[in-house]
């Protein structure tokens, strides 16, 4: 009976038990109940989670060391995974053939053909090159691979002969962490500025809002172009990465500040805030214990929707060559190689990292949409 009631409760969100005592579900429980009903949101969450796992354990999923450059292996097309060999025989274990290249005598186009003499079975949980779990624990295990002498490149190789699948997984670290950090910083700045602006009002509000307008009107592309020219030449890619995080953060907090200010303006006249004031609560207590938690649902939604924007912005800048540089790698950086005629005509697989960007952006957007709907569980569907 109790279980049944719980299920009913979960369905309806209205709570009661046998004894008639009122039982409260937390706000987050209510949000979760509503969120999990949204299939796109769940799918979005899974997409994001998959990308995060691929990024963290990229080396585990990569059969070839994604940092291992071999210029002679450049632009190898994706390996075709087979279960039926050239003689038409079915094999239970998937396998690959190594590729051989010939050059077309007239067009000089490289022609890749499978060599049936060089067949390699795909093995799972294989031991090969060493990597470190979370950069700390050494291991040689990989999800899949082929025997010695065999080559498997799920998405082919790029211009330096590095495995594109492994590179795309690794690139998620920069793309996702950059967007996550930049979003977190912008959320903190935006939320604090918005709450302070809305709570105090008057001159402070006026000054802050004019400053918000100033920052919001700043043209971003010229700023990037200028930065590209003035960044000290001894800065390495990591420092450039940190600067990118800071700049993205500082340019993307304004919208949130405006929205939070609006929420706080509404809250500050409500009874619970007035009561807190009457009871002598300090401003800091009111801001951090009352106003901030009440705005958190909105902030989380903005967070999930800002991340894909920053992923796209990073991809855009790296595509233009003014973002991430070697030896770091991001999805946008991988796409930089996809902007020439040769890629469109001959090396089409170089464009595949765009799938990661699409999945990330869609995933975060689905997630954000689901959260937005779920964030207000008291509304009528």
């Amino acid at each position: 009976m109790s279980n049944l009631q719980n299920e009913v409760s979960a369905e309806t969100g209205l709570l009661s038990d046998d004894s008639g005592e009122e039982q409260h579900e937390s706000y987050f429980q209510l949000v979760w109940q509503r969120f999990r009903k949204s299939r796109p949101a769940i799918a979005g969450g899974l997409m994001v989670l998959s990308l995060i796992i691929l990024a963290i354990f990229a080396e585990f999923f990569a059969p070839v060391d994604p940092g291992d450059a071999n210029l002679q292996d450049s632009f190898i097309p994706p390996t075709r995974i087979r279960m039926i060999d050239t003689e038409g025989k079915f094999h239970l274990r998937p396998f690959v053939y190594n590729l051989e290249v010939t050059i077309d005598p007239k067009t000089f186009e490289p022609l890749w053909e499978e060599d049936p003499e060089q067949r390699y079975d795909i093995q799972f949980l294989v031991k090969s090159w060493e990597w470190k779990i979370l950069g700390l624990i050494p291991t040689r295990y990989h999800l899949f691979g082929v025997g010695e002498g065999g080559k498997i490149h799920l998405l082919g190789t790029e211009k330096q002969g590095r495995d594109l699948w492994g590179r795309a997984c690794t690139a998620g670290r920069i793309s996702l962490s950059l967007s996550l950090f930049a979003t977190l910083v912008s959320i903190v700045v935006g939320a604090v500025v918005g709450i302070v602006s809305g709570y105090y009002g008057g001159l402070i509000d006026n000054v802050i809002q004019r400053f918000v307008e100033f920052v919001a009107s700043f043209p971003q592309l010229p700023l990037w172009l200028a930065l590209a020219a003035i960044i000290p030449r001894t800065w390495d890619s990591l420092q450039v990465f940190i600067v990118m995080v800071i700049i993205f953060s500082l340019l993307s907090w304004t919208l949130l500040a405006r929205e939070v200010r609006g929420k706080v303006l509404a809250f500050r006249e409500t009874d619970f805030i007035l009561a807190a004031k009457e009871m002598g609560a300090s401003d800091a207590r009111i801001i951090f214990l009352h106003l901030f938690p009440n705005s958190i649902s909105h902030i989380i939604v903005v967070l999930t929707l800002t991340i894909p924007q920053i992923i796209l912005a990073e991809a855009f800048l790296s595509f233009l060559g003014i973002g991430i540089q070697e030896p770091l790698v991001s999805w946008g950086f991988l796409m930089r190689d996809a902007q020439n005629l040769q890629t469109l005509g001959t090396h089409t697989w170089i464009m595949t990292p765009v799938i990661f960007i699409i999945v990330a952006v869609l995933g975060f957007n689905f997630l954000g949409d689901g959260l937005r709907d779920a964030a207000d569980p008291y509304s009528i569907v």
Partner: protein
Amino acid sequence: MSRSKKRTIFLILSLLIVTAMLVNACGGGDSEPAAAEAPAEEAAPAAAEAEEEDAEEAMAEVDLSPTEYPEPQLIVGSREVQKLPLDQILTYKALDSYSEPEWVSELVAEGVLPPVEERLPVEPRVILESGMADGIGVYGGVWRDFSACPTEGYNRGAGQSAGWFGIEAAAYASLLKSGPIYRRSDSLEPLPYLAKSWEWSEDGHELTMSIIEGAKWSDGHPFTTEDVLFSWEDMIVDPNVQSPKGASAWIFEDQMTELVVIDDYTFKFVYPVAFPVQSLFQMDEGDFHISPSHILKPLHPKYNSDMDYVDFEAAMPPDKTPVVLGEFVPVEYITDELMILRRNPYYWGVDEAGNQLPYLDEVVFEKGPSGVGRTLSTLAGSADHSNLENPSTFIETLKRAEEDDAHFYVEWGPETLGFSIKLNLSTTLGVKDDRDSAVRELFRDLRFRQAVSFALDRDGISQSILRGPFLRGWAGGLFPGSSYFDRSTVAYYNHNPEASAALLADLGFEDTDGDGILNWPADRLASGENLVLALVTSEDAEETQTVGDAAVTLLGDLGVQINVRPLNSAARREMNEAGEWEMRVDRDSQTFAVPFTRCRELAPIEREFSFHREGSEPRELLDFEQELVDLALAFCVEPNTDIRKELMAEYNQISTENVHFIGVFVGRYGLAAAKRFKNVPAGMPVFMYNWTWENVMPEQVWVAPEEQIDQLRPGVIPTYESE
């Protein structure tokens, strides 16, 4: 589980994920070189000595000698140039009769134009049939092309651009023409053009030139030495006019050359030195622009007090038909969209049958924002010519050319498309602190330049840019496609990571903090710091970025951290002028293909030398640089071709032995040209002494009547408002 606990767990998990991603993203990973073991914080003197001995031993064991530079691979689609003596290519003589297109004759009949005999000079420039690939042609037809530069105006002598990409070549004429030198078997001198002959005085201080007699500008006004003198005195020599090649190019041993007019068709140069034969290349297309004095003199501030130099520069605006001497005249320009050039009815050249040239009636330049648009337009069928200079377009262009309905063919020229890494050799310009000083001193050390050269897997880089036989490693020095190139003189420090590591160790670099990056030795100004160098690439040239990325990987494997920064051309120019760069990837100029035309750019002779620029403090040339300067100066004034070749052989040896700059790869320019064009010389290079439009001699190109396409402005000739 309570609400707060769940929240705490969520927060901890989130933090863990973010931390893990950051650790993974920024951690050292496996890219550390083998040397990055056992950090030695404070090495004991004994240990230091032992390491020094180890480095010496390592040096002794490693082979540091250069390897033999390989022969080029043969490539399908190249043809031998049919070289001929000048007298089989062209001459200047009167013919019995002359003819013109029928529609022009109709204009003559209407009184719009004088008869062709009156429009032509006494002795026109005659293109001989023996020099034509497909013989005497027929009239009519269009050449459709593409320009990616804005058209500022037509006052070229004052530095204005008409849009490049062949527009200047089609519309303007110069005293001499160096583009077709590749066709000459008798000499490497420029071909006569407006100047039909020249003679050196016995002492070599005077060069007397005769210009074509009776030639006319496109408005019918006679061309005389008055125009040459105006172009010299009031354009080239006038410091207020931004002429393409200013007076400084005519100063020898601190003295200025003089130009003296003898009569309407004869003048002479008086030089302060004997036989400065290289100056002939300063009279060719693009360098000694002949401006119409009857149009511009009245507008020059020297003769017109109402004008200033800014107004003067804009005196030939793009919306007004210019008065020119070239084969074609721009008659219509739609800003950033289209330019139409029509045949110049006063052009002063004919074929052996007396047909006034050019054969084509019209040239159309479509305007676009980027040079690659020319190749794309050619592939799409809307342009008739493209210079294939971007390797990433080669295969797609060839694939299209092989299709049955392709309207163009592709031909490959000599190996003159080279990319290299330059190191800034200046000790003062752009140096701001001790680290900068240390970097420049390092660059001036031969061992470091050799180390970088040994680190580069040139063949790998070539294949990573374009598989196949198009590209191969290049040591630097002269291009293999240059007629002065001698393979035996090349010192080729090709891929040898062990040699590179040994040289870096010999320089004292060692990874003392175990972070995978070498640290500067204690006796250098940047002591203890990581060896981090900045490498600038070009946003406009994709191959420079590929080379930069490869340098990050290849030098990174040896513990040298390279920070790549792609910059646009304007930012690069500013950076070069300020000297604030360390390493850069360049696409090299024709200096290394045809050194005689730009002999002063071979070595740091001029203050503005590319990678050893002089600032406010005097430049400190390295010993080998001084040798290169001496050789280049001797080469500039050497009239004997054989001796010039010997000088260049010596130059190439010194340059490559000392790794003056680090060649990376060399390839070939390709020509994509319409199949319907006749008289395009076999084996014509896209880029040698000049570019396609100058090399092809467009006045001789013709199209069979059945293959001619519709003209945009049939029957139009350039017309001018009477003053």
